[in-house]
């Protein structure tokens, strides 16, 4: 397998992992919205309510930065990263 194919394989792996986490916090948990809301969440808000107004949103922010860092590492590993900019 060529270097480029390996790079793409890893990139795809990271995509699936990112999308899996995304799925959980944008869709998965809201399948159980009613049940989850009976539970207390952070800062004392009902749990589902908290996820809709802070939790999921904040997790998406962190997820994107995490994804960007992981992807940079993958690019560096194969020598595909760009030089001298940010």
């Amino acid at each position, binding site marked *: 397998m060529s270097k*480029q194919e390996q*790079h*793409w394989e890893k*990139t795809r792996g*990271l*995509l699936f992992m*990112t*999308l899996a986490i*995304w799925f959980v*916090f*944008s*869709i998965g948990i*809201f*399948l*159980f*919205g*009613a049940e989850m*809301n009976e539970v207390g969440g952070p*800062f*004392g*808000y*009902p749990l*589902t*309510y908290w*996820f*809709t*107004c*802070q939790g*999921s*949103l*904040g997790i*998406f*922010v962190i*997820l*994107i*930065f995490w*994804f*960007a860092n992981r*992807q*940079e590492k993958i*690019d560096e590993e194969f*020598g*595909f*990263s*760009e030089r001298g*900019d*940010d």
Partner: protein
Amino acid sequence: MIKGNFIDNLPKVYGIYTGGFLAFIIIMSIAEQMGMTAKTIGICFVAFTVAIYAIIGYLSRTAQADAYYVAGRQVPTVFNGMATAADWMSGASFVAMAGGIYFKGYGYMALLVGWTGGYVLVASLLAPYLRKFGCYTVPDFIGTRYGGNLSRFMAVVVLTVASFTYVTAQINATGTIASVALDIPFQYAVYVGLISILLCSMLGGMRGVTWTQVAQYIVLIIAYLLPVFWISNKMGAGFFPHFMLADEVARIGELEQQYGFVKNAAADLKTVPKGLAGITKAHSAVNATPWAFISLALAMMMGTASLPHVMMRYFTTPSVKAARKSVGWSLFFIFLLYSSAPMLATLSKLSLIDPSLPTGIIGKSIAEVQAIDWYQNWNQANLMFVSDFNGNGTLELNEFFMGGKAVVLATPEIAGLPYVISGLVAAGGMAAAMSTADGLILAIANAISHDVYYKIIDPKAETAKRLVVARVLLVVIGFAGATIAALEIQGILGSVIWAFDFAMSGLFFPLVLGVWWKRANKEGAIAGMFLGLVSGAAYLIWVRTGGSGFLGITQLTFGIFGSAVSLVSMVVVSLMTQAPNAATQKMVDNVRVPAGKSVI
């Protein structure tokens, strides 16, 4: 002036700008103490900020295609994040979102999840790859990846349908704010708004829009957060509302139980002015079925990843790496406002319905409420209404009606904040609507000038001529949008949501599969765009004309149907026709590697 070391000086430039804006707020509040009228303060706020944007727009003028279309590809990560956040957060986000949460609670908050979660798709599926591609516009990617004028043209059509639906709402919002702040009739105010919008974008194109959007973000975020924190502190609800409103949320739940949601008779409701609503849904309880919530969130997420005016912001970063990080910053800056909207809704609702608070009106006598100053003001502005349906002389929860915009616009006044805050909020709303309108008009005009005029009609056109065409189109599209906005056909929010559905119906899968599926070819992409858009639009028309719909897909989520048709037709047609040639395959390989020259 804006070149080279301007980029290095950005933090300083915008630091001074932010300080200057804060100083302006302080000067205005002193002027208010000294007796300046509310009307003058409103005019000052809107005129001062718009003048600043116009100056930035003028300083960013350019005669280079690269600067006009993609801001010279040198916008640093964090600043591009701010510009994207302003580009993204429309008049609807600013003025209507807290109101939507106030009235509809959980079911509406699907939009919060959808309008943020979409950025994960942008970052992981599209933005870095389109940045590597090196295109000027989104149809530029479609046209080059799939080849042929027809695919390029189809992409322009989808882009125009989606963005134009969106832009009329934004021009409408600038008109509304300008007409209130400057006290002129709406029909004229729309054109005042339009001229302000064009001042930012006409001379500098994307470069002008970038630097005005950063300035607009700073205004709109201060204008949103300052009142939320101030009101929360004034009510004694907590100095950092986001972490401290649990008791208030619980208290609203108690009061809702105590009052109950009494249903009004249809005849009574007819007397309520159009556009106003009462509180009929629980504040923090789960009041929508999982599918209703998820389908709306999903439609908004896929729509986010298909809207060209957002995607093209990531064409302006210096590198692929920067494009990825920039998506994160964009969402962070959006998060600051979105996470505050539910807090504002909570504070606003509690201050109105809690009889133990001095501002609470539920349980007071109708005559007493009608004598309150702010009630009279907002009743006159057609945003508040009370009526004694049951004739007991006391205001009940189901007898109080409010417009969605009032949550953002009126809460500062209800909480007893000085008028300077209302002026600030008007400037913030104007900034939000203007920045989005600019992004959208530019997206349409650039697509038509670059993809239709330059790439299809006259490939030999010189840069100067191309930029003249681009600017003429900008003005024409702006005026077309303003003319439709002046007719006031749709509500602000409805048309915004449709734009997402149109975009995802036609563009989501052609864009994503263009990067992630090498086998996708021209025929498939054309089928995907055409059938996706047509079936989505047909579904919308069917539901709007009394159709029952299926699978719980409503007029707000028709993009789910459209994009499903798009996916299936694109895959089927691609597999039935020839695989893309070796050159195209190589182009896709090239897009997937961040290093090296851009593809175009």
